[in-house]
């Protein structure tokens, strides 16, 4: 297989999906518990696959599944397993199984307060216990402000390709992130006098991730900026640039994210030209690693660029974090 074959194979994608991709992005819709007439008609017709009593209840869950795909929604069977911890209730509303793939449709609700809202994020806090090797993903689907429920879809797949059949699967959640804090802006307006002899170290330990465009960097032998507690510049309370330097033909920027594990702090560093353009180069990469204590994390962004060109750019940062991380222990088990 070649990458070209993959690109050619895209021509087999469903026409309706291709058309939808060109539509301008819609604002996220908040369902208010009403059942659309068309959706109701489909639910009645499809009563064999989803009990009408569940579908026509006050819950807007079916509307949300229907929005993903009408055909998809009709394959779900009700489960209605609940678990509460610290006043927050998780409900496994329904599930579907199709061969080696399955999905759980769940809701999260704060029954005693208002800690859950439309920014709820479970991405790194959920786990699945299955009697088979699997891959999975969790996506936020919608938030209903009238009932205070956030809805998610957890999809998973057997890696051996065999059908999922009469298997017990446990879904657990350890924490819920809420309250996105997004910040962006110019970190350093003038890069002309960037230090060409910063403190460096060979290799990066505890590497947790690398993103690169063209060639994977060798994190064992490359030079990196040395970590420190310095704060060269910052535009938010959870991310600091601790070092900047130019060496080995590239601009290096070291950013520290505080408490990245619990609040999912992360960001991106780019070079912005005076004309508003964003500098791009195939060799740009980011190496992420943790400190020994695994609390703060570091991102070293490496941007190949001529030193004489630095004066044409300013350093720009986009940062994201969450305000709260609601720790807990929610767990439900379903037999598929």
């Amino acid at each position: 297989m070649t990458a070209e074959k993959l690109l050619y194979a895209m021509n087999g994608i469903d026409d309706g999906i291709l058309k939808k991709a060109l539509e301008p992005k819609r604002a996220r819709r908040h369902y208010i518990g009403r059942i659309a007439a068309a959706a109701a008609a489909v639910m009645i017709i499809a009563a064999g696959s989803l009990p009408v009593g569940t579908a026509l209840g006050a819950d807007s869950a079916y509307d949300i599944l229907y929005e993903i795909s009408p055909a998809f929604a009709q394959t779900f069977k009700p489960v209605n397993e609940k678990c509460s911890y610290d006043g927050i209730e998780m409900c496994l509303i329904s599930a579907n199984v199709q061969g080696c793939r399955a999905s759980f449709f769940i809701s999260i609700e704060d029954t005693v307060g208002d800690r859950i809202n439309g920014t709820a994020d479970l991405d790194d806090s959920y786990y699945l216990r299955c009697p088979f090797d699997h891959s999975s993903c969790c996506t936020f689907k919608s938030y209903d402000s009238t009932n205070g429920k956030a809805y998610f879809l957890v999809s998973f797949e057997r890696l051996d390709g065999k059908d999922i059949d009469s298997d017990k699967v446990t879904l657990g959640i350890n924490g819920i992130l809420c309250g996105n804090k997004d910040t962006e802006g110019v970190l350093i307006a003038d890069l002309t006098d960037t230090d060409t002899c910063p403190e460096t170290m060979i290799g990066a330990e505890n590497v947790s991730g690398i993103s690169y465009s063209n060639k994977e960097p060798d994190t064992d032998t490359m030079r990196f900026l040395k970590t420190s507690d310095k704060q060269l510049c910052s535009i938010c309370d959870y991310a600091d640039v601790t070092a900047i330097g130019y060496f080995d033909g590239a601009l290096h920027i070291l950013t520290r994210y505080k408490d990245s594990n619990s609040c999912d702090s992360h960001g991106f560093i780019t070079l912005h030209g005076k004309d508003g353009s964003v500098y791009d180069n195939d060799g740009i990469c980011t190496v992420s690693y943790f400190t020994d204590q695994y609390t703060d994390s570091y991102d070293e962004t490496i941007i190949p660029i001529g030193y004489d060109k630095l004066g044409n750019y300013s350093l720009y940062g986009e940062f994201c974090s969450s305000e709260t991380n609601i720790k807990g222990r929610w767990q439900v088990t379903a037999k598929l």
Partner: protein
Amino acid sequence: MDDSELIELFFDRDEQAISETDKKYGGLCTTLAKNILGSTEDAQEIKNDTLLALWKSIPPHRPEVLSAFITKTARNLTLNRLRSHKAQKRGGGEYQLALDELGDIITTPESVTDSCEAGELQQIINSFVSQLDVDKQQIFLLRYYYLFSVSEIAKRTGSRQGRIKTALMRLRQALKERLESEGYL
């Protein structure tokens, strides 16, 4: 003019069909072709070839989704032209970048059966894309079908470029896992 009216013009063999289609979809065809070929002149030729292909195929064909029919026609013509000029320098920056990005997920090309049917691969890709949520579908297709740049995708989706890059990285990883599970990698 809506798409059903456009199609009727084709069926009536009214030459206004060409000018109206050019007005509505000409820009999209040209952009898609230019993303691959890198040349405005070549992209204009592709657009004209696409309009001619439409005139020849409608009727008897009556596309259900006209925009998709047009872009698939334009894309095929463009990729075929690229293939026939393979020895020449590829001018399309976005096409080459997209190839490089997808190339990263093909780690052991020798181990893959090249005899896999094109139709099978199309089905896998279609299944993969249709199971994505709407936002991720849009990002994936704007990048790897329409071959828009990351900055253009960011504008279209109202997201930041960094988020688009991260989403694409995760989508490529998910595609890789899917192809591995199907035995294509």
